[in-house]
Each structure stands twice: as structure tokens, then as C-alpha cells.
């Protein structure tokens, strides 16, 4: 029983990372009605830059540079999406494909610039003992940053006119245009914000478990799984979806053996997708 408790709480801590990655994914889904598969790649890029700049200048500068580079990378896919939007109306898969191409591109950039070795930084050498469970203070940092970002994203989306305009653009593009919203510019800004969130997530992953050049797709899928569990429409749900997947993953790794343990989280996502209501096809024009 105690073991289960430990698994669950470690799962929650792991899930915070997934939840952080779910933020940019569901934010972009809300703003552009599509999924950016390069989110994990922004995180890796930000982490790698933070590690190398942080190593040669100082950590704070590294973190800021890393996040900035993440934003720039997502601005690139934002521009691509604008170019695509002009040609391809309505097919959200085209941007998904383009973002996949961009993810491959960035992975290769990171490999070329920063090499194949894992990127990791560990400033904490001591642990907190909470109820008999040893936890790295970094996990605490992650939880605090996660909660702050939840609050920030919530306020931004639901309490500012920018957020209202973003939601309007995704909900009904024509209506947004008629209300005088520069939908394309707004979407672009949503990409930048997603890059910011992915960059922050990347830096936290760098300081928590580390990553390597090829981790991007893994991070994207983890974030996407988190985002989809309770429905893609709310970044807040995505955060809790992350926690849920973290717990499922930890418990299955703790109790199941071998590949089966890795199968469980995948089956979980698959079942949620196919049996849940989140992914169903909606009537034309109305989002499911």
C-alpha cells in the first residue's frame, strides 16, 4: 500500500513534465485547430542551448537563451503555418505533416550542433524526505513552475482579450475575422507562446531527467498523450492528463514486467482516444 502511494506520488512528479509539454500542444490546438508535432523538438532545442550556453556563460543566461531559441523555432513553424494556410484551407493534417518535417529538421540541427551525448544538468545533490519518500528539490521546482504556468495560461486564455480572441479564432475563424481580429497574426502569436511554454518545459526536463537529440518525438508523444486524455480543448485538462499518464506509467513500470510496462501507457492513450469522446468526429463546422 505504501509502495502504491510512493509510485503514485512519483507518477505525479513525472506527470508534471508531461503536463508542461501538454500546455503548448493544447494551446496550439485551441488557437489553430491542429497539432504541432515539433513541440518536443523545441523543448530539446531549448534544453540543449540552455545546457551549452549555461555551461559556457552562466546557467541563468543559458536558460533564457534556451527559451528564446525555443520561441524562435516555434516562430519558424508559425510562419510555415501561415504559408500553408494561404494554400491549404481546412486540412489540419497538412500542418501536422509540416510540423513533423520540422521536428526531423530540428533533430538533425541539434545533432549537428550539439552532438549525440545526453544533455543534463543537476544542480541539486541533496534530497528532500517527504513522508519517507526521497524527492529531488528539482521536482519541487517543477511543481511550482507547473502550477504558476497553469495560473498564467488560465488567466491569459480566459481572462484577457487576447485569450478570448484566440479562442474565437479557433472556434469560428470567419466570426473572428468579421470582429476585426487579425486571425493570422494571432495564430502566429499563439505559436510563439507555445514555443515559450515548450522552451520552459525543455529547460525543466534538462534539469530533471535530461534528454538527448532524439528525445523530441518521445516528448511530443508524452505531451500529446497528456493533452488528449481529458480532451484537447483545455490546457488545464492537459496538465492533469499529464499527471494521470505519469501515474499510469509509474504504476505499470512498478508492477508489470518488461515491455508490458511500456505497453500499458500506450494502451491507455489508445483506449482513451477510441472510447472517449474527445476525438470523435463532430458535425461539420462545429468542433467535436
Amino acid at each position, binding site marked *: 500500500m505504501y509502495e502504491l502511494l510512493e509510485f503514485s506520488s512519483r507518477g505525479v512528479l513525472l506527470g508534471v513534465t508531461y503536463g508542461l509539454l501538454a500546455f503548448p500542444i493544447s494551446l496550439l490546438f485551441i488557437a489553430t485547430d491542429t497539432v504541432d508535432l515539433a513541440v518536443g523538438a523545441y523543448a530539446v532545442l531549448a534544453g540543449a542551448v540552455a545546457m551549452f550556453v549555461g555551461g559556457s556563460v552562466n546557467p541563468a543566461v543559458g536558460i533564457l537563451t534556451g527559451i528564446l531559441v525555443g520561441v524562435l523555432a516555434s516562430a519558424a513553424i508559425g510562419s510555415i503555418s501561415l504559408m500553408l494556410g494561404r494554400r491549404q484551407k481546412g486540412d489540419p493534417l497538412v500542418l501536422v505533416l*509540416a510540423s513533423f518535417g520540422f521536428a526531423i529538421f530540428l*533533430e538533425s540541427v541539434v545533432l549537428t550542433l550539439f552532438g549525440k551525448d545526453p544533455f543534463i544538468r543537476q544542480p541539486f545533490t541533496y534530497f528532500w524526505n517527504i513522508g519517507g519518500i526521497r524527492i529531488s528539490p528539482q521536482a519541487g521546482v517543477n511543481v511550482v513552475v507547473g502550477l504558476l504556468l497553469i495560473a498564467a495560461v488560465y488567466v491569459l486564455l480566459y481572462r484577457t482579450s487576447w485569450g478570448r480572441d484566440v479562442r474565437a479564432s479557433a472556434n469560428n475563424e470567419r466570426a473572428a475575422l468579421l470582429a476585426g481580429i487579425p486571425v493570422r497574426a494571432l495564430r502566429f502569436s499563439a505559436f510563439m507562446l507555445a514555443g515559450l511554454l515548450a522552451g520552459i518545459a525543455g529547460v525543466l526536463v534538462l534539469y530533471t531527467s535530461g534528454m538527448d537529440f532524439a528525445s523530441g518525438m518521445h516528448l511530443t508523444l508524452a505531451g500529446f498523450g497528456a493533452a488528449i486524455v481529458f480532451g484537447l480543448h483545455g490546457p488545464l485538462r492537459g496538465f492533469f492528463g499529464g499527471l494521470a499518464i505519469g501515474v499510469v506509467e509509474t504504476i505499470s513500470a512498478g508492477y508489470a514486467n518488461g515491455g508490458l510496462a511500456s505497453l500499458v501507457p500506450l494502451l491507455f492513450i489508445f483506449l482513451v482516444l477510441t472510447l472517449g469522446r474527445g*476525438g470523435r468526429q463532430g458535425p461539420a463546422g462545429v468542433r467535436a
Partner: protein
Amino acid sequence: MNSLLMRYRSVLVLIVVLTVVTMLIRANTVWLDTSVVIAIYSLIALSVGISYGQAGILSVAQAAFASVGAYATAIVTARYDLPAAVGLVLALLLPPLIAYPLARLVTRLNALSLAIATLVFGQAFDIILREGGDFTGGYIGLSGIPPLPFASGLLQFHFVAWGAVLIVAVLLSNLIDSPFGRATNTLRSDTLRAVADGVNVPHVRSAILAFSASVAGLGGWLYAHHIAYIGPDSLGPSVSLSVLLMAVVGGAQTVLGPIIGAALLTLLFKFIPSQEVQGMFYGGALIAVLVLTPNGLMGLRTVIGRWMKSSATKRERATANVATGVSAARRAS
């Protein structure tokens, strides 16, 4: 007669190109080997073309279906010494048997969730293969798959592989030109309209995915007998993504597109200088194609054609419209 020519024009183009290429490379083992690999990738890319291009199902698990075909024939031929023909039957039948129920589960999802569901399925299938123990050879895979008795030489295999591609190209041309194909195309562009037209949407979509899985299985069968080894890495999730890339780059909605994409990306690979920057080429190519010619390289044809025709038709249409407008007005008064 003319309509038949139109229907099979892609197949005819393919036959002509193949004849020329075969003449050129028939004595060169390396090029024949490359050609066989291109044919195999073409089949799997065509399976993407069928599901995505025709029915709008972006399946990111096509290599898993090819894997089923490859493993099926590997197990029956290498382990039980059954003829490769038995393997072929299994390779054609087993993938759709998995794909159809899977499709019934996932095709009612929206396009995006569907793609992710197939991606997750591909990953899960990968784990199952690795955990398959002696049956699938686990992580090591299965080796010692016998060559095809009637195609032991590379040149013969080249003919067999491209023959398979031609058969699929003919079937696909028929599909595109059939009422069933038009039904799937309607539901690609407008699901509601298809429902209104009385199309059993879940069944049609699932049947298409099953057909595409069968085509992928055929590719897997050829793969197993060509390479003589099949492992979890052989036709793994990354191959699913490459063939998707091939189909999209070439043009997923056409017969020739996936084949062109398969040939191009396989050859491109030979000429990229440094391996580390390969991803930049692949990713960059995909983005460039999507931005510049959204229907793939085959789409270039229509882009150019449209550009050449547009001025002429514009003038015609303008005069025609004036005429109908005037007559309508006459009738009204």
C-alpha cells in the same frame, strides 16, 4: 477505349519508365537491389496513398501492416518450410484482418485523433513484436528466410517486385475510377455529404484501410524474401513515417505519386553528403513540398497546367456568363 487509356495512363507511364530503367540497370546488381528496395517502399507508400490519399485516413502504422506480412511469411517459410505462396496468402489476408477491426474502432475519430491513434497502435505493435519471444524472434528477429523459388536472381526479383507494384497500380486506378472510389473521395472532402448520399461511411473507410493494409502486407512479403531477415527494426515505426513522407512528397492522391516519392527519397538518401544533416534534407524537403505544391510533386503537373490554361478559360467563361446572364434576364422579364 479513350476512357480506358485515361484510367490506366499512370500504369502505362509506369510500364514505359520501368522498361527503360530495366534496360539500363539490368546488369548492375547494386542498382537492381536499389530498384527492388524502391519497389518495396513504393508498395508501402502506395498503401499510404490509398488510405490517406483516397479516404483521408492518415495512418501512421502502415509499416506495422507490412511487418505483419513479412513476419507471416518468415514464420511459415523459415520455420515450417511451407512454400512462399502460403506466406503470400497470409501476407495478403492477415494485415486486413487486423486493419479492419482497428479501423472500425478509429475511423469515427476526427482526422487528427485518428492519426495519433494509428501512431500509438504502431508503437504498441512494435512492443508486441519485441515481446513476441521465439514466435517472432523477439528483439533479434527472424533470419534465414528462403528466397522466392521463381525469383532467385536479382533481375527476376526486380521483375516480381515491380510486377506487384503494377498490379497495385492497376487496382488503384480502378478504385479511383469506380463508384466506390468516388464514394471514398466524397467522404474525403465532405463526410456529411457522403452520409447524405447513403454511403456507409465507417464501413467504406474501414474497407479502404483494410485494402491498404493488404497492399502493405504484399510489400512486407517481398521485403522478407528479398532481405532474408526480418526484425522489429526492419519495418518499424520509423518506416511508417518514411513511407508517409514518400507518399506526401510524391503526391498521395495519385497513383504515381507514392512511387515517385519512394524512388526520390531512396535515391536522395544516396547523395546526401553528411549523415548528421540528413534530417535537415528530409524535413526541409517535406516542408518545401507542402508549402510549394501541396498535392506533392504530382501536383506540380496541375499547378503548371492550370497556369497555362487559366488565361484561356477565363476569357471563355466570361463570355459564356454574359450570354447566360442576358438570357436569364430576358426570361425573367
